[in-house]
C-alpha cells in the first residue's frame, strides 16, 4: 500500500510545479477551528502566521511544492518530507483532516472578496460606525457581553465572518447562545451562556455579572437559537464590509 503514495509525490516533485490545492472536500467549520489550534502548535513556527514563511509555499495563495490533492497533503503531514525540515507529524486522522481544512480555509479567505479589504479602514469602521465594541471586545477594549474577538482571525474564515455580520441568526455558534431564564418569582435573566450541566447553568448577564442558576428554581429556561446581534445588511457598503472582515481576519490573538 505504501508504495502507491510514492509515485504521486515523485511525479509532482519531478514536475517542480506549484499547484494550487484543488477544492476536493467539504470541511466543517469545527474542522477549521480545530485545525487553527493544531496549526498554531505544529506548523506556525516554520510556516508562519500567514502560511507563507517557507519559500515556494504559500497557503493563502494555495501554493505548494509537493502536493496537489488533499490526500497528498495528508501524506505530507503524516510522513513529512524526507531531506527537508518538514518532519512527520504524529497526529491522528481527525487532526490531520482538521489541519488540511484550516490550510484550505486560509486560501479560501485570502481569495474571497470579503477578505481583500483594508484592515486599517476596517478597524475604524469596527470601532466607529459599526459600534461593535458596545458588545464585543478586542485586545482588552470593549464589552464582554458578546464574544471576545481578539483571536477571531485565527479561527474563522472570511466567508464565515461576512455571514456573521450580515446574518447573525444563521451563523451563531452554540458557545455564543443566549439564555433566557425566568425564576419562580418572575424575574427574567438573560445572558450569554458560559456553561451548563444537568442541574445548573452559568452565564454572563447584560451587566457583565457572572451568574449561576439552579434549574430547579427556574420557571422557564430557554437557550435561544437567535443572536442578539443586529444584522448589518444594508448598513455597510460591500467595500466597507470587506474592510471589516479583513480587519477581523488580522486579529490573531495575544501572543
Amino acid at each position: 500500500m505504501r508504495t502507491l503514495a510514492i509515485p504521486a509525490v515523485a511525479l509532482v516533485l519531478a514536475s517542480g510545479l506549484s499547484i494550487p490545492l484543488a477544492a476536493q472536500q467539504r470541511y466543517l467549520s469545527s474542522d477549521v477551528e480545530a485545525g487553527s489550534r493544531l496549526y498554531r502548535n505544529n506548523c506556525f513556527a516554520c510556516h508562519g502566521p500567514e502560511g507563507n514563511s517557507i519559500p515556494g509555499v504559500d497557503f493563502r495563495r494555495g501554493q505548494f511544492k509537493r502536493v496537489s490533492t488533499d490526500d497528498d497533503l495528508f501524506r505530507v503531514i503524516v510522513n513529512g518530507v524526507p531531506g527537508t525540515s518538514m518532519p512527520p507529524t504524529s497526529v491522528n486522522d481527525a487532526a490531520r483532516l482538521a489541519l488540511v481544512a484550516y490550510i484550505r480555509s486560509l486560501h479560501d479567505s485570502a481569495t474571497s472578496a470579503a477578505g481583500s479589504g483594508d484592515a486599517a479602514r476596517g478597524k475604524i469602521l469596527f470601532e466607529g460606525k459599526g459600534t461593535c465594541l458596545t458588545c464585543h471586545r478586542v485586545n482588552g477594549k470593549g464589552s464582554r457581553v458578546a464574544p471576545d474577538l481578539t483571536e477571531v482571525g485565527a479561527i474563522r474564515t472570511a466567508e464565515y465572518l461576512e455571514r456573521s455580520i450580515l446574518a447573525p441568526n444563521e451563523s451563531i455558534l452554540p458557545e455564543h447562545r443566549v439564555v433566557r431564564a425566568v425564576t419562580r418569582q418572575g424575574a427574567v435573566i438573560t445572558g450569554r451562556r458560559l456553561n451548563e450541566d444537568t442541574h445548573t447553568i452559568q452565564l454572563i448577564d447584560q451587566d457583565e455579572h457572572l451568574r449561576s442558576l439552579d434549574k430547579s428554581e427556574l420557571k422557564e429556561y430557554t437557550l435561544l437559537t437567535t443572536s442578539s446581534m443586529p444584522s448589518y445588511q444594508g448598513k455597510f457598503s460591500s467595500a466597507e464590509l470587506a474592510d471589516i472582515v479583513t480587519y477581523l481576519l488580522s486579529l490573531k490573538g495575544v501572543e
Partner: protein
Amino acid sequence: MTKPILMTTFLTLAAVPGAVFGQVTWDRLLHAEREPQNWLTYSGNNNAQRYSTLSQISRDNAKNLEMQWVYQARSLEKFEATPLVVDGVMYLTEAPNTVLALDAKTGATFWVYEYRPSADARPCCGAVNRGVAILGDTLFMGTIDAHLVAIDAKAGRPIWNIQVGDPKLGYSVTHAPLVVKDKVIVGVAGAEYGIRGFIAAYDAATGKEVWRFNTIPGPGEPGHETWTGDSWQHGGGSAWITGSYDPSLNMVYWGVGNPGADWNADNRKGDNLYSDCAIALDADTGKLKWYFQFTPHDEYDYDAVQIPVLVDANWKGSPRKMMMWANRNGFFYVLDRTNGKFLYGTPFTKQTWAVGLDEAGRPIRAPNSSPTPQGTLVYPGVQGGTNWYSPSYSPRTGLFYISTWVDYYMNVAKMPAEYTEGQRYTGGAPRSPVPTLQRGPINTWTAENGSGEVLAVDPNTGEKKWQFKMTDVTGSGILTTASDVVFSGGREGFFYALDARNGTMLWKAALGGQVASGPITYRVDGKQYVAVAAGHALFTFALRQ
C-alpha cells in the same frame, strides 16, 4: 430506619466469624455472591451483572450518603479503574500501571507497586488501566506496553512478568484480566494500529501461555474467508474489556472490537469475522464454541467491546440461559448463551446505519450509509449508543441498565488507509460536536448534540421503563443493589443514587471530574461503602452515622 438495619448487619457478621481473611481461591471466585462484602472481580462476579446483594444503603436512606475517604491519583489520565475489595483491603490501579493496596475503610495505603511501561507503548485512547484480577495471594495486571504482570497481593512485589504483544506494533492491555480456574485470561487492544487481535489464557502460577484464540482467523481457520487479500493481517479485532464466565457451560464470553482500518473497508470485503462479535470460548482450551456478529463488515468503529452480561431467567415463559448486550452500534440484544442463538434485538437509541435486524439478528444496512470522503452523517457517533462502560442487570427489578448516548451522531469522512508498522491505521475521521473522551469546551452543548442517560430496559420487550436524563453524555458504569438502588455518574462529574424501579434521583454528589469507571460496593465492619473513580481521584461513600 438506619439503626435496625445496622444491628441486623452486625448480627449477621457476628454469626459467621472467620468466614474470610484467606486466600482468594477459585472456589471463592466461583461463588463470589456468597461474600457480598467483597468485590472480587472486575464485574463483581462471573455473571458480570454488577449487582450486589448488599442493602444497607436503601432508597429511603441514600440521601444520607456522605464521603468517607478519597484517594488522589498522581496521574492525570482518565481514571477508568474498578477496584477489587478483598477482606477489607482494596486493590486499585492508577494510570498507567500503578497498583495500590489500600485500607478499604480509611483509604490508608499498605503498599504501592509502580510498573513503568516501555516508552514504546502507544495505547490509542489514553494510557489507562481498568483494574486487576486476583487468585490466591496474587494480583494480575495487564499493561499498556502489552505485558501481563503477577504481583504479590500482600507484599506488592512482582512475581512474574511476561510480554503478550509487541507495543511497537500498537499492542496494549488496558482491561482487568479474568481469572478462570487456574488461568488468567486477557485480550489485547490496538485495532487503531492494525494489530491482529487475540484473547489468551496464561497459567496463573507461571505466566506460561496455555491457549490463544486469534480474533482474526488466519489462512485455513474458519472465518478466514470473510477477509480479502492480506487484510486479515491487520484486521484489528481487539478485546479491551473484561469477559465473563459460565461455570455450568465452562464457556468464557468476550466481546471483540472493530476491524481495521476502522472507517475505510475497501480492502476488507466480507463480514470480517470475528470483529464486532460476541464469542464463546471453551475455558480450558480456548476453542471457539459459537459466535454472534453484531456489526458485519463494520465501517463505523462499532466495537462489540462491552461486558457480556449473563442472566438466567424466564424467556417467553421458559427458563433460559441468556446473554444481554447493549451494543455500541445502538441495538440491544438478547442471545441464548448456550449456542449464540439470537433471541431478540431492538435499537435502544437513535441509529441510522441499519434499517433493522433480520430474523437471525443480522443488521439490514441502510442505503448510502457508508463513509465517504465528503463525510457521511451516521447515528450513533463513533463512541456508540453505549461503549465499554459496565451495564447492570438487577434480578430484583428484572431490568437491564445502560449508560446511553442519546441522539448522538458523527460525520464520518473516509480517508486513505495505508498500513505502516506502529502507526495509526484508521482510514477516516469521525467528526462530532460531542468530544470523544472527555468533556470539551464547557459551553458548546446544545440539544442538537444529544445527551446522556441512564436507561432502564425491560429485556423481554425492549420497552424503556425509565430514563434518567443528563445534559452531557456519560462514560460511567452502573451498579445495582438488592435495595433497588442504582449507582451511576456521568461526564459532568456528578455521581448519583437512583431508584432502580423508576429512575427517581435519590442523592447526588458533585465530584468535579468525569465519572469514567464502574462503581462498586462492599462492606467493612458492618458498614456498606460505595466507591467510584471520578476525575483523578477515587471517592468512597457510606451512610452518615
